[in-house]
């Protein structure tokens, strides 16, 4: 009964989405406010029904109803409750349901908080959201229904892939989806603007916070996935340039570019057409990512060809929305007026440069990810494009970008003073040079690029601080004045500083981890001692333990540094009986930002166990960087002018009439 109710709720959500995609458009065409307002109630009701559907699927997982195919294939009655819940989106059907739920959530948010949007703009935006939602509801209902029943229900489920039975799964996919799908809002705004043929600063003021929200979640989602892989997969890698990762990186790059161009649009009313294009691009890349991971085209072009139902459906959605929006763009973009002149050396110019590099980086990832697929389809030649390619092409693009980064915020709008900005960055430059010199002397004979890269990172961080110092007049004015100025600074300025510094922090982590990583790979017997980067790890022994749905062998290592006992580390290897597969649970010992990482391999016949121990200096910086960036985004989001909303103070009084009590 629960499954049927969930299925039915999903069908109703589709019906509501169809209403939402059509009626408001007619309303906007005829100038009928009542019809335009249908968008709002339809979006909220759609959110309610898809929410119910999602809650019902979760219920099926919690009660382990194995008469439902999806639950049978991905759950197990002995699984801990948390993994029963997260298992809902640990599979294709469930994760698509999560996707549309989040889409409905964003639509609902626009509906609920969009009161100060012009009525026709809101109607158009929600209608476009309705189109996307309808397409994906159809996709789920036709090809990926999570509520299908089995004729003869089995007693026990097949369990979830053990690698996914981790707290990372609870958080990573929802975060990533909040990011992916969040870009649908800027997409809908862009398409709405193209349909209306009108775009102004208020539009940018609306799009920016939504883009920022999506970007914050995507940043955290990517970082989180990277950390999850790092500790779960057992060999300490954190980024692999895999197509699936690239699928999330591309929207991030486009979204980052969009955030910056939206600033120009909001402040200076320039780059309108470009901002629209980036809005379309960011969400198109999200859709592309969904297509890449959902269609199975990545595993093999042939796998896609043999079971094409899902893939072809998403490909159709992809072509429809990307093609359609680009056609609309080509047709209508010229009708949008350009505004705001600026000199090449100016804040706008710097942001354009940022966009040039970010979109090129995005194009690089794009071609690297899709080229092998395209080549195979066209010529049958099989090539691989992996980490070495991206390190060679993507990496260098970030060097000029990061060199230019501190200059941007120091340049004035319209016409900047490069010499003045350089002068103000002198201190940051000197700090960076000192850091390079010290590192060079310290690691003499070692890697030559690493000190330079760290110098660049420090320049970025110091440059971000320089902006704050300049604006608060710290060191020039009395401390009290500087503090008062610091409080008076817009939060967005703080946000910029944090986000930019975050890039530098992440770069330090990346360089240190890749350059000065030490490792030990060997077979150890009890009481053997391994020495890695000065740490001594003694294997005390291996014990067997029974978990809820697995058995694990836990090794115990005593870690000492210079004869001083630090901690006991307990890496383990888990065997999941139902799926007959195993996972390594690495043990981590954190010292400052560095980590000692121990993971277990197989046990030999003679009782020795394969052990890998890594010392990863400054490795946590890799994830602290994105966290800082997301925090910067959050600060920027809390900026007064975004909270206040569109600049229409005169309209406020007549906003509160008796429309509200209905809720």
């Amino acid at each position: 009964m629960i499954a049927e109710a969930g299925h039915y709720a999903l069908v109703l959500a589709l019906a509501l989405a169809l209403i939402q995609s059509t009626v408001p458009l007619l309303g906007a065409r005829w100038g009928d406010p009542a019809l335009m307002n249908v968008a709002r109630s339809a979006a909220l009701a759609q959110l309610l029904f898809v929410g119910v559907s999602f809650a019902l699927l979760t219920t099926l997982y919690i009660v382990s109803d194995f008469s439902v195919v999806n639950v049978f294939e991905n759950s197990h009655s002995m699984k801990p409750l948390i993994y029963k819940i997260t298992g809902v989106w640990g599979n294709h059907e469930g994760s698509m349901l999560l996707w549309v739920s989040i889409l409905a959530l964003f639509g609902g948010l626009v509906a609920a908080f969009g009161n100060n949007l012009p009525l026709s703009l809101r109607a158009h935006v929600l209608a476009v959201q309705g189109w996307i939602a309808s397409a994906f509801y159809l996709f789920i209902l036709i090809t990926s229904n999570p509520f299908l029943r089995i004729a003869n229900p089995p007693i026990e489920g097949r369990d979830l892939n053990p690698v996914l039975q981790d707290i990372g799964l609870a958080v990573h996919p929802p975060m990533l989806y909040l990011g992916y799908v969040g870009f649908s809002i800027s997409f809908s705004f862009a398409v709405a603007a193209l349909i209306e043929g009108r775009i102004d600063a208020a539009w940018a003021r609306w799009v920016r916070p939504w883009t920022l929200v999506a970007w914050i979640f995507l940043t955290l989602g990517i970082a989180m996935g990277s950390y999850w892989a790092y500790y779960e997969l057992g060999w300490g890698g954190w980024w692999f340039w895999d197509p699936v990762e690239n699928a999330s990186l591309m929207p991030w790059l486009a979204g980052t570019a969009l955030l910056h161009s939206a600033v120009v649009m909001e402040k200076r009313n320039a780059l309108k057409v470009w901002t629209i294009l980036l809005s379309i691009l960011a969400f198109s890349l999200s859709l592309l990512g969904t297509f890449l991971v959902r269609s199975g085209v990545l595993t093999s072009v042939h796998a896609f060809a043999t079971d094409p139902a899902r893939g072809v459906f998403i490909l159709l959605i992809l072509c429809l929305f990307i093609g359609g929006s680009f056609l609309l763009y080509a047709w209508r973009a010229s009708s949008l007026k350009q505004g705001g002149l600026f000199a090449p050396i100016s804040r706008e110019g710097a942001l354009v440069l940022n966009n040039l590099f970010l979109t090129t980086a995005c194009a690089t990832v794009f071609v690297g990810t899709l080229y092998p697929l395209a080549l195979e389809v066209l010529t049958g030649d099989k090539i691989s494009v992996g980490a070495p390619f991206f390190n060679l092409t993507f990496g260098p693009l970030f060097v000029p970008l990061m060199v230019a980064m501190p200059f941007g915020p120091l340049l004035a709008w319209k016409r900047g003073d490069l010499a003045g900005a350089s002068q103000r960055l002198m201190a940051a430059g000197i700090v960076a040079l000192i850091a390079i010199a010290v590192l060079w002397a310290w690691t003499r004979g070692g890697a030559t690029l690493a000190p330079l890269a760290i110098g660049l990172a420090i320049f970025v961080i110091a440059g971000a601080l320089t902006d704050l110092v300049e604006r608060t007049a710290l060191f020039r004015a009395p401390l009290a004045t500087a503090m008062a100025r610091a409080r008076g600074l817009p939060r967005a300025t703080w946000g910029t500083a944090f986000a930019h510094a975050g890039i530098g922090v992440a770069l330090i982590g990346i360089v240190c981890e890749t350059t000065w990583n030490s490792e030990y790979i060997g077979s150890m017997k009890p009481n053997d001692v391994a020495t890695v980067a000065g740490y001594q790890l003694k294997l005390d022994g291996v014990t067997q333990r029974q978990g809820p749905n697995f058995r694990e062998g836990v090794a115990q290592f005593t870690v000492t540094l210079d004869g001083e006992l630090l901690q006991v580390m307990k890496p383990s290897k888990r065997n999941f009986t139902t799926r007959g597969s195993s996972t390594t649970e690495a043990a981590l010992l954190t010292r400052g930002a560095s980590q000692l990482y121990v993971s277990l391999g197989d046990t030999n016949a003679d009782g020795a166990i394969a052990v890998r121990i890594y010392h990863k200096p400054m490795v946590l910086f890799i994830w602290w960087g994105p966290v800082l960036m997301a925090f910067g985004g959050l600060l920027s989001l809390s900026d007064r002018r975004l909270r206040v909303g569109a600049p229409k103070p005169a309209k406020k009084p007549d906003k509160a009439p008796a429309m509200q009590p209905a809720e």
Partner: protein
Amino acid sequence: MHKLIASLFVAVMMAGYPAAHAVQPDEIMPDPAKEARARDLSRELRCMVCQNQSIDDSDAPLARDLRLLVRERIATGDSDSQVIDFLVARYGEFVLLKPRFSPHTLLLWLLPPLALIGGGVALWFYSRRRTDAGAETDPALLRLTVEEEASLERLLATEAPDKKA
């Protein structure tokens, strides 16, 4: 992460993954310099049965065979490029994670620099055109009109008390 997310997304198609531990203790060469070369080479080579994984990362049996093969060639005195050539001759270019620069990978290698240069050139022309267009109005941009001066005065006068509020 690829393995992880891949399994998350494609879980339906694939059975569970064994945990990965790549290079095994018994594979390691006695000479650390040669072992380091083997590791560096391994990162450039693809495990052909895996999804975009280098043989250094993969624990598939094929990856192990390839790792041993690389070490065997290094032990017999092959240079790095000889090892690569040997593997390409045997398994095709698919084994390279960094494709060679050749006619059929031209676009792959040239697109990033072309996008950057093309974008830069387009921007340069665009900004030239815009400044040319703006040149006539330039003095007007620089100097304020009498009305603007007056409204600026008014704004500045009201600014101070406004900020305190």
